[in-house]
């Protein structure tokens, strides 16, 4: 039933807190050595899912397999997982060395072995000079490194991260993100990483699972999630500024919406025959061609800039299309003022088309 190279496999996992369904018959297969990111808005059940995998929460129903072993009823320490928390959760009264070795001491690993493993982890994470300090005497970044080290020394199959970087400032977060990626390359462990930061998700993940209300809305590579969102929710959730949506209907391969007509030549439909129906088209602000690029776009038009937000590296222009606000992302050097007429180009191949009722991709 389980593919041989799955690391973590979740079958029909359901979890209820009283009457609230937090996880709804959730299925997920994570490959060996994969970096999987669970992404979703606050309260969608990411931490809950992670805690279930860790064994810190008992599911109402369903099974969890790790390395082909049914771990549903096992204690957290018996599952071969290590966990890193948002608040670091270092034991305040122990030194860094004590924190790193606590799990090994509980498992009655011989002293010499403990020492060598702690030394190795400290070296990998560059926290050797800190080994005899207490957590209170560490910076946020150092604390998070120790927390990662605590999972590292235990030689686990699966690393679980619950928003490990969200308490750090932007610069440090970027640094540690790169380090985490490097660590993953050198370790080849499976990593499951919870975040609600899109940048973290896109940069770290082999695959991303987008969650909403305890369900997985889409599981795919960052490229698939970004370029071919399976439903309107994912399309809207991913990308900043978010996607422009225009409501209308699909008629013989052309999208009609208010005064807008888009011949969808080059658009990859999910099925060979898609019947005419009410539909929504989604166009990312960064996929709207401006300036010299307009000429090469299959569909061209003109809008009036209403509001201009310069953001340094790029400029966000607000306009109207088919009677709806329409965002266009331009180069940071672009000189546009409100009221300017702006030629734009759209490539249907980069657009996303959704059924207006089911909001699924067409």
């Amino acid at each position, binding site marked *: 039933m389980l593919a041989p190279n799955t690391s973590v496999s979740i079958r029909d996992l359901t979890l209820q807190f009283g009457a609230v369904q937090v996880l709804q018959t959730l299925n997920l297969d994570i490959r060996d050595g994969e970096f999987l990111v669970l992404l979703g808005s606050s309260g969608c059940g990411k931490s809950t899912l992670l*805690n279930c995998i*860790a*064994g*810190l929460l008992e599911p109402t129903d369903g099974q969890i397999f790790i390395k082909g072993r049914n771990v549903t009823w096992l*204690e*957290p*320490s018996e599952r071969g*997982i*290590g*966990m890193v*928390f*948002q*608040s670091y*959760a*270092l*034991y*305040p*009264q122990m030194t860094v060395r004590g924190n790193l070795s*606590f*799990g090994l001491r*509980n*498992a009655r690993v011989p002293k010499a072995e403990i020492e060598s493993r702690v030394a190795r982890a400290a070296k990998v994470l560059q926290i050797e000079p800190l080994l005899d300090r207490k957590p209170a005497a560490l910076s946020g970044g150092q604390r998070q490194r120790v*927390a990662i080290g*605590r999972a590292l020394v*235990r030689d686990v199959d699966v690393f679980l991260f619950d928003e490990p970087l969200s308490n750090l400032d932007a610069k440090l977060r970027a640094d540690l993100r790169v380090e985490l990626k490097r660590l993953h390359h050198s370790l080849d462990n499976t990593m499951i990483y919870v975040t609600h930061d899109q940048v973290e998700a896109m940069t770290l993940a082999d695959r991303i699972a987008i969650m909403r209300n305890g369900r997985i809305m889409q599981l795919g590579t960052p490229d698939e999630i970004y370029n071919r969102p399976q439903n309107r929710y994912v399309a809207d959730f991913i990308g900043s500024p978010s996607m422009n949506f225009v409501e209308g209907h699909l008629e013989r391969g052309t999208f009609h919406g208010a005064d807008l007509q888009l011949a969808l030549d080059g658009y990859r439909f999910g099925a060979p025959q898609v019947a005419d129906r009410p539909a929504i088209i989604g166009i990312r602000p960064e996929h709207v061609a401006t300036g010299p690029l307009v000429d090469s776009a299959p569909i061209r038009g003109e809008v009036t800039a209403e509001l201009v937000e310069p953001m340094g590296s790029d400029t966000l222009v607000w306009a109207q299309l088919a009677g709806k606000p329409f965002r266009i992302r331009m180069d940071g050097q672009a000189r546009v003022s409100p009221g300017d007429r702006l030629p734009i180009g759209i490539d249907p191949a980069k657009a996303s088309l959704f059924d207006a009722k089911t909001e699924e991709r067409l």
Partner: protein
Amino acid sequence: MAEPATLGTVAAVDAIKERTGGVGYLEGPRGGRPRRVLTAHNVVLYGTLLVIAAYFLLPLWVMLVTSFKTMDEIRQGNIFAPPTEFTIFPWIKAWAQACTGINCDGLSRGFWNSVYILVPSVVVSIAVASVSGYTLANWRFKGSEAIFTILILGAFIPYQVMIYPIAILLGKVGLFGSLWGLVVVHTIFGMPLNVLLFRNYFSSVPEELFKAARVDGAGFWGIFFRIMLPMSLPIFVVSMIIQITGIWNDFLFGVIYTSNERYPMTVQLNNIVNSVQGTKEYNVNMAATLLTGLVPLAVYFASGKLFVRGIAAGAVKG
């Protein structure tokens, strides 16, 4: 020597300098606001505090001076005056010679009885309460909230109601009149308040710390002894103070659940002060009373700071 180079002056400051004749500051308020000490508000406030403080301290003063006076001097009647003829004898008599019924070895017997009651009662009641609080805070199980609620409600039942049933119960299990019977009673009656304290303190410990320890393979006792205990000194001190003073000052349970030769110090004190034979020795009585109050007093002085810290920490989360 060249003038040190000036870094250029700010025009606005220069304008101010001109107006103030080179001072560079405008007139009017500057820096911290001055505080006046002798305002009507302060006089009333501190005056009231002083009166109240005197009101509470005066009896203590009277006790203290009386305990160092001879009986002759006491009979002269000026209870506020310090002793003219200082004597330590009443203290010695209170401690070692005062008579209660057939024994004439003073309070010392009661003191040691109290110590024998206090130590196991405090240790057992705190051990039971801390583990219960830890369980209720961190190992929620079906019905744990209900148990907690019942426990708290228990604090509102007047304990006089339970005296007789408990006496019967202790008799049935053969602990009536024994030291351990009293230890059990103190443990039970200390539960509601102390479990509440410990539960609140332990729930204020971040949940992720507890989860991390579980992932690290620590069990129920491992987490309790190696993670929770080392970070909960303040709440243990609070609980200890509450239990020590409560148990030391206990009179009722001591009279009811122990027998004559095991009476705690408070009961012994009562027997000395209320003994009907001979004249009332006020100086001895005062000394005996002060001696009895010395233990809780010492505990407060020794750990006041930790007490405040613990109370504040325990109050964070309900």
